[in-house]
């Protein structure tokens, strides 16, 4: 009996001990770095709070994943000892290598995000930032300048500083700061220019993430000005049609010979504004006239192209106004609107054709488009005439109505006069 009881007690004790052990195992999962740092202040507290949202944390990489040390160790000294592989805060110069130890390792990265490129570090060393940092410049951007630290998010996360819509702001935090940039020989007005540009408005105002931010032209990890040699290539990423035309145009060789940059020589860079037909031709706003003068062939070509463009766009605008007017006044013009869409596309294409710098191709295309435009214009006129006809019809009807009402009234009077008699 007694022995049975002792046995029971023993069993219970064993179970208790095992359960204690399990509990302490569970406790081991708790990160002592975070636990301790949550008790600290300021910059020692900050990472512990932020890290909850960090993409690395979400993937299961803890503080030790980057900083080394032993997160299971209760004792702070031991946890952050060199023996445990602890690496304290890396210096600014060390940061690229610090991140790169994992991010440049395809075999390692495959375990987390196989789709993520691993060439960032290599590219970074080619960038202006990377070259400067190698020379010991601590003010240039490295990984955390743009990606933030301890709360790093995926670039597709709208809260990330390098999310499409946030890139201009992120770059400008240094590049628009005149004091900060004082020791570098570059301007600080790019962001201001960009904000007002056609690209800046598309991205920042219309939230069109297809529109280019800084990195789309300058590269991101390999950020560097595209330079004369590659600027065309940069623009052709989106403006391919213009590029294809330009590359076989007489300007291509001329620009190459002169060492002129493609695209930007006429259109500028950060401050590109929406284009108008006035920028073709030889008027005050003309871009052509900056190089071409009255006695050369280009001058005449510019003039001819502009005329064709203006004719087409005026016809288009007039047709659109007519059709809109008719629609406002109640005439159904869905077919006309559809035809108008076609003309609009022809107009866009003819405008692109300017980049061939060949008046013959442009004019013949413009003439073809003009036929359709004239047709729509005619339809617009008929639609407006239809409005007028409806109103005329109504006025005629009103006249008959008034006469009829008057005659019935006379008739009533007559009947009532007869009654009295």
């Amino acid at each position: 009996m007694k022995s049975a009881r002792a046995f029971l007690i023993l069993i219970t004790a064993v179970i208790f001990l095992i359960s204690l052990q399990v509990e302490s195992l569970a406790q081991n999962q708790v990160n002592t770095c975070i636990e301790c740092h949550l008790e600290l202040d300021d910059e020692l507290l900050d990472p512990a709070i932020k890290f909850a949202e960090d993409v690395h944390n979400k993937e299961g990489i803890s503080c030790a994943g980057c900083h080394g040390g032993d997160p299971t160790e209760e004792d702070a000294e031991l946890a952050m000892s060199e023996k445990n592989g602890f690496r304290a805060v890396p210096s600014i110069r060390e940061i690229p290598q610090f991140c790169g130890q994992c991010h440049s390792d395809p075999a390692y990265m495959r375990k987390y995000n196989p789709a993520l490129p691993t060439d960032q570090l290599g590219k970074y060393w080619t960038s202006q930032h990377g070259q400067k940092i190698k020379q010991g410049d601590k003010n240039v951007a490295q990984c955390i300048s743009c990606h933030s630290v301890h709360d790093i998010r995926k670039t597709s996360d709208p809260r990330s500083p390098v999310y499409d819509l946030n890139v201009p702001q992120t770059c400008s935090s240094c590049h628009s700061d005149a004091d900060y940039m004082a020791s570098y020989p570059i301007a600080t007005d790019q962001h201001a220019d960009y904000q007002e540009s056609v690209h800046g408005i598309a991205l920042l105002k219309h939230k069109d993430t297809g529109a280019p931010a800084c990195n789309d032209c300058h590269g991101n990890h390999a950020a560097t000005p595209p330079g004369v040699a590659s600027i065309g290539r940069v623009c052709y990423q989106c403006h391919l049609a213009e590029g294809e035309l330009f590359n076989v145009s007489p300007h291509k060789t001329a620009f190459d010979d002169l060492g002129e940059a493609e695209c930007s020589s006429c259109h500028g860079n950060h401050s590109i504004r929406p284009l108008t037909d006035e920028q073709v031709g030889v008027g005050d706003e003309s871009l052509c006239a900056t190089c071409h003068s009255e006695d050369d062939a280009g001058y005449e070509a510019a003039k001819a192209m502009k005329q064709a463009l203006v004719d087409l766009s005026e016809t288009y605008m007039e047709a659109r106004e007519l059709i809109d007017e008719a629609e406002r006044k109640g005439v159904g013009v869905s077919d006309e609107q559809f035809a108008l869409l076609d003309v609009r596309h022809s107009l866009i294409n003819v405008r692109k054709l300017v980049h061939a710098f060949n008046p013959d191709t442009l004019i013949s295309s413009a003439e073809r488009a003009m036929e359709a435009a004239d047709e729509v214009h005619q339809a617009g006129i008929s639609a407006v005439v239809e409005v007028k006809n409806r109103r005329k019809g109504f006025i005629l009807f009103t006249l008959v109505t008034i006469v009829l009402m008057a005659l019935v009234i006379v008739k009533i009077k007559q009947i009532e006069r007869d009654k009295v008699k």
Partner: protein
Amino acid sequence: MEGNKTNSRRGFLNVLLGGTLATFFGMVIYPVIRLMEPPKLPEADISSVAVGKITDLKPDQSKLFKFGRQPGLLIRTSEGEFKAFIATCTHLDCTVQYRSDMKIIWCACHNGQYDLNGLNVAGPPPRPLTPLEVHIKDDAIFVSPKA
């Protein structure tokens, strides 16, 4: 004499009244009769649009057509398969085209590219193209919205 005069005045009024009344009714009835006249297109139906004959398109060719208020793009792939999409680029509203040299659907405005399933694969477009259903009856091609 008096009576005669009023009588003729009355007769005149009646004729005038009758004439005006007839004109009035004519003007009311006219639009009604015109309305009942069968219109050129027999019905309002974009549930399916006849786009043409199979023989109109060789493999690796395409064709734009009107689909309701929007442009549609019909493509015959090099394998001979028919595909149709709303041809409005999902970036800005340019009309896309088939580029047989690249075997993609391409938007000339900003070099947006879609594969032949309409998926946006490169450039600024944020979304795939809206696909349409292609039906072939005898040798005629009909396109309708995807159910």
